[in-house]
């Protein structure tokens, strides 16, 4: 299944829910298989898609490990479990007698590029959300610290660190657009942010393009989920702090999280799983703790007070309703 001019991808599922793969399967109007063909991407083996099982699958992995088959990109989905005591035994790669930690460590150094697909592989993710014996890590990070399974110094053969396609689950476009850019030789260190996330999505905030933007501007806040108002002040929304172009892509042909009525939990951020009470905004002295990412507090207070006093009646009433009750019209009085 290998042609030398194709871009060879091997995909492994570490301690994952499989959700990144499920997301990936939604790529391309003609379907993922056609999409991959278009860009000359060859899947050496994928646990969900490939025919090869058991010894046939192992033969492919061994060909990669021995260098017989070139590995252009190793995609890892899920956290790496180091426990107990760095043995990795909480995830044994079935049929091999070896831990997934051991397999990923061996194959990563052979890959031209290593992609951490999803926030688990990138930063440890949801299963590093409380103390458990698994010692779950990302490939190069644990939360925002460089304590990942492969170590801070790891560089793939291309010289890049692990590329962190964060998100829980990430948008399928984030995964495929990075893979295709890599295969075309168009992806460099400049295309990564400080947490090695591709800037093609990380240069934006999830807030950008939110359908609730008018409510945000006036600090007209929803009191309960399902209401139309801004979710930041009371309902835990972190879209003004979270990296992602979520609100100018469609998700399964539908809206993003905030447009579907629930708060952004910043699933592209390292350590997002550590929050307490995700759907409630923590406040100190009446002020939300998590202010927009680069906004000085004094300005936030001043602008919030000003905008609240200027809120049109329409915006105020709609923000507390689960349907639009007052449509926009000319000449509405400002009160």
């Amino acid at each position, binding site marked *: 299944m290998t042609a030398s001019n194709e871009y060879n991808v091997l995909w492994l*599922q570490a*301690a*994952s*829910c*499989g*959700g990144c793969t*499920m*997301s990936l*399967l*939604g790529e391309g109007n003609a*379907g993922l*298989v*056609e999409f991959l063909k278009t860009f000359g991407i060859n*899947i050496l083996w994928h*646990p*969900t*898609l*490939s*025919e090869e*099982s*058991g010894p046939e699958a192992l033969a492919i992995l061994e060909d990669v490990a021995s260098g017989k088959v070139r590995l252009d990109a190793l995609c890892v989905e899920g956290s790496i*479990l180091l426990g*107990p005591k760095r043995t990795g*035994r*909480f*995830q*044994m*790669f*079935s*049929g*091999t007698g070896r831990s997934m930690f051991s397999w990923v460590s061996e194959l990563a150094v052979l890959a031209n590029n290593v992609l951490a697909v999803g926030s688990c592989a990138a930063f440890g993710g*949801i*299963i590093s*959300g*409380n103390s*458990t*014996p698994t010692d779950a890590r990302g490939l190069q990070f644990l939360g925002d610290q460089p304590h990942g399974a492969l170590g801070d110094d790891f560089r793939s053969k291309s010289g890049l660190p692990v590329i962190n396609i964060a998100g*829980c*689950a990430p948008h399928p476009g984030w995964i495929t657009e990075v893979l295709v850019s890599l295969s075309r030789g168009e992806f460099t260190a400049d295309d990564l942010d400080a947490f090695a996330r591709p800037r093609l999505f990380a240069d934006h905030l999830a807030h950008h393009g939110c359908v609730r933007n008018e409510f945000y501007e006036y600090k007209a806040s929803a009191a*309960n*989920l*399902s209401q139309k108002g801004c979710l930041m002040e009371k309902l835990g929304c972190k879209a003004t702090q979270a990296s992602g172009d979520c609100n100018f892509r469609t*998700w*399964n*042909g*539908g*809206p993003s*999280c905030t*447009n*579907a*009525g*629930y708060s952004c*939990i910043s699933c592209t951020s390292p350590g997002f*799983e550590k929050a*307490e*009470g*995700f*759907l409630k905004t923590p406040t100190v002295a009446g002020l939300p703790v998590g202010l927009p990412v680069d906004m000085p507090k004094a300005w936030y207070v001043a602008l919030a007070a000003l905008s609240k006093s200027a809120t049109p009646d329409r915006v105020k009433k709609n923000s507390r309703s*689960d*349907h639009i009750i007052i449509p926009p019209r000319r000449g509405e009085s400002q009160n």
Partner: protein
Amino acid sequence: MTRLIVGPFNRVEGDLEVKLDIKDDQVEAAWVSSSLYRGFEQILEGKTPGDALVFAPRICGICSISQSVAASSALRNAMGLEQAPNGLLATNLLSATENLADHLTHFYLFFMPDFARDTYGDQPWGEAAQKRFKAMQGEASSYFLPARKNLLQLIGILAGKWPHTLAIQPGGTTKTLDQGDRVRVISVLSEIRRFLEEKVFGDKLEAILELSSFGELFSWADNQPMEQGDFRFFLKIAQSLALEEVGKTSCDAMSYGTYDGLFPQGVWRGEVGKLDPQLIAEDLTHSMMIGDTRHPSQGETFPDLDKADAYTLCKAPRLDGKVVEVGAYARQLIAGQPLIINLAHKSGSNVLSRVVGRLIEAARLVTIMEEWVDGFKIKEPFCSHGKMPDEVEAVGMTEAARGSLGHWLHVREGRIENYQIVSPTTWNFSPRDSSGISGPLESALVGVPVIADEKNPVVVQHIVRSFDPCMVCTVH
């Protein structure tokens, strides 16, 4: 006697290893092993109850909505809340969409590609099966994946992101639909019906749902050439390989019930009986878990990888001490679907009946979804709201695509004191219990013929995949 270890077992969701003792060219004993532990129950301990809605769906990327439904229903029961009727409809539609997507994904991506293996090249249907179902190359992956994407638009419209939405709340859903949204839902549903009728069944859904016996099913299959619909294609293969005799189990079948009782709760023991959830208990004898047999409301999850006589991280749930099988076949049996009842009486649970159960359910779901969408009163609320008590115990029970899913919640001083999850594949792929009785898959594998030098017996793959296992749910 020789021992065969089959793994990595792919085209199942998650990590699975199967050990087989082979004697006289057949499987004498089987051990099924789940080899990944993530610790969701331990993670949830001490969290505020509402945060279960963030963590629970992330147990599983393929049945994420089902996990959300179980968690939100445990929270709703804890709060003593009623769902807004629109929210109930939207939740049911979301759940049915995911079930449908799972059934079709199983059929096209996980199960059928095994019939396109070179092993079957000499069969009269071998070449045609390769052309259509070869993994990543066959025509089916080119027409199924766009159809799947289209289907998931229903989740997009009703809940935004998938997997892992927060739209499903205890009191309903966060996305209020407007007139336009409803039309889009109807439009997508009509495209799904067309896909099922043109590609999957090669016939009207109503005609499929009228088939009521093994005989009718196979004479329907004989009426047209096998290329006419992938279900017919499967039935022809099933006939030629006698799949109704492969992977048989003889245990009871169970459903927790879902869709507000439309698929009811019950146990099948040759006829439908009542299910008493108090009789559920998890046996840990051969599981790498410390503790004694307990009802999930009192359950514990403490892994011990070095425990003697333990060979899997999966627990062994039992109902009144007995093994039960769960899944679409069990659900349709208990829901009184005539064809499935006839298959059960004729040959019980086997590879054929499990696959037919799933596809018949898929046809049924589409017709039910078409009715639900007319039930929305779009000017009324989609979500009700309530308060979580500081001290409470509750359970959320539902049916995921793969079978019965339960979340048992205990809240103390406003925090999660204990959260125990029993998932469908935990029932189906459970290890031996304290009486040495095997779970459904282990017993389905016993007696299966295996040729001496076969390293990766294809029949074993058919049997394992016929359960559509979700290993990430199994041990969470």
